[in-house]
């Protein structure tokens, strides 16, 4: 059973940061009280900020969205009570979840900081104790950012603070080194004896979140690298009538000749490190101005919004047109 704790009855000061736990540790929290005890035992936390820990989900499903929806509703409801928000997510599908929440929240006038346990030495992530320490260190960085004069949905899981929709993962050839970087050098700050904010950072304003919570869940996700080749085409052909879209993740690269096998009646998003394409109405179009994570999240969000909007108005835009529309400054103007 998942729990979102209501705000406590005692008065919360204006400089309190809400810490929403949606994953990140190897060991789950079984209750709100256990999360609070973990935070109290983590003495360094309260040196950085007054913190209100909130257990959104005891066992969040990294691929699911229910816990994300709950967190967005909480943030929208409690917007005025907190100076900023920190959200911890599981490292598996971290950027996808951060991007999806960014679209659901919309434009925001305070900092909403996503973080997780990351390491440049991926091997060390097998050690639970080490993961806890990493998460604590990243939470402190995120709390510091949440007290500052910046706004937006931002990723801070390492040394840099970057808009979530502009964040990519840079992997070294050895694949043990994994770092979050900006797709277009738009870095809002870096952690260097404090958070050193750059000229790109936007300052706080009165924008409140306007949650758009219609998410399409009937999307098939196919990871090409995790699927034996003989099964791959079977999976693609076997897309059920209930599916409203398909995401094909090619990992490092994706042979676009796969389009010959794609379903014709529903949109298909193809993502890889090399780029993003949409296959719609039997046409393959490149979408260069979105990161692969923003594209996958936006695809999911847009298909839900289309279903909702089509009930309200008759104008029909293609999925490609929706993907090319800028909602939350996710469109990358110029890649370096």
């Amino acid at each position, binding site marked *: 059973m998942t729990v979102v704790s209501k705000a406590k009855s005692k008065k919360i000061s204006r400089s309190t940061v809400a810490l929403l736990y949606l994953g990140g540790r190897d060991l789950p929290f079984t209750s709100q009280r256990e999360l609070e005890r973990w935070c109290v035992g983590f003495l360094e936390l309260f040196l950085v900020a007054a913190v209100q820990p909130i257990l959104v989900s005891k066992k969040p499903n990294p691929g699911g969205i229910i816990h994300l929806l709950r967190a967005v509703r909480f943030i929208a409801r409690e917007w005025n009570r907190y100076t900023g928000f920190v959200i911890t997510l599981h490292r598996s599908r971290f950027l996808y979840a951060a991007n999806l929440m960014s679209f659901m929240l919309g434009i925001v006038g305070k900092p909403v900081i996503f973080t997780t346990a990351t390491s440049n030495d991926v091997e060390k992530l097998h050690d639970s104790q080490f993961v806890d320490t990493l998460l604590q260190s990243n939470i402190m960085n995120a709390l510091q950012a949440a007290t500052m004069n910046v706004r937006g949905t931002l990723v801070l899981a390492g040394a840099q603070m970057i808009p979530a929709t502009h964040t990519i993962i840079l992997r070294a050839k050895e694949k043990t080194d994994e770092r979050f970087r900006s797709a277009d050098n738009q870095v809002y700050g870096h952690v260097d*004896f404090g958070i050193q904010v750059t000229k790109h950072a936007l300052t706080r304003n009165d924008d409140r979140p306007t949650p758009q919570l219609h998410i399409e869940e009937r999307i098939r996700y196919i990871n090409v690298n995790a699927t034996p080749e003989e099964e791959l085409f079977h999976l693609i052909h076997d897309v059920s009538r209930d599916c409203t879209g398909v995401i094909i993740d090619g990992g490092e690269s994706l042979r676009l000749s796969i389009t010959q096998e794609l379903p014709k009646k529903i949109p298909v998003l193809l993502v890889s490190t090399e780029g993003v394409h949409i296959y719609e109405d039997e046409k393959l179009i490149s979408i260069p101005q979105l990161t692969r994570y923003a594209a996958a999240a936006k695809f999911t969000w847009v298909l839900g919004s289309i279903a909702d909007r089509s009930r309200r108005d008759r104008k029909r835009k293609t999925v490609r047109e929706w993907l090319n529309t800028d909602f939350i400054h996710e469109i990358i103007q110029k890649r370096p």
Partner: protein
Amino acid sequence: MRAYVHDEKTDGKLLALCEATGIDILTSDQVRRRKKLPEQYDFFLDQVDVLIMEITKPTQDIHFILAQAILADKPVLCVYAKNQSPRELLRHINKKPAPRPIKTFSYTGNTLGSVVIQFIRTHDPEAREHDEKPSIKFTIRLTPRNERYISWYSERYALPKADAIRKLLDERDTLDPDFPENAAK
């Protein structure tokens, strides 16, 4: 050894004391001026071996740096002016069970130097060498008799007068059992 020095109260005195030991120093001003963290570091505290911070009036950044330093078990010397203790910050620091990587010290103008030198020498065995290198200027008025004695002493031992004075101090230093640094050896 490399130290991060954060000082916005002593008008450069703390920084000068650290520089006199010859250790490599990174200051808060240098950090603010640079555009990004050097590429070879993923965690800012990996750039330094120790931190020396003046915390009489602690800022949000000081709170943050200390929090990360405690978690990373990085040695920190926190000094604050006597009778101006930052109570809330000290209360947070003291909540951490011993042994703590953070040492706190209430200083006056006369005591700041020795606590900094002692902290640095504890963490850098090579600091002793720098301790022997004259680098601190000192103005003193001598009586006419003092001057005659120094002139005679320097002629006798074929030393410049400044060297002669240092020789006398060194002899006194090594023979004085009450000097705390001699007691610690």
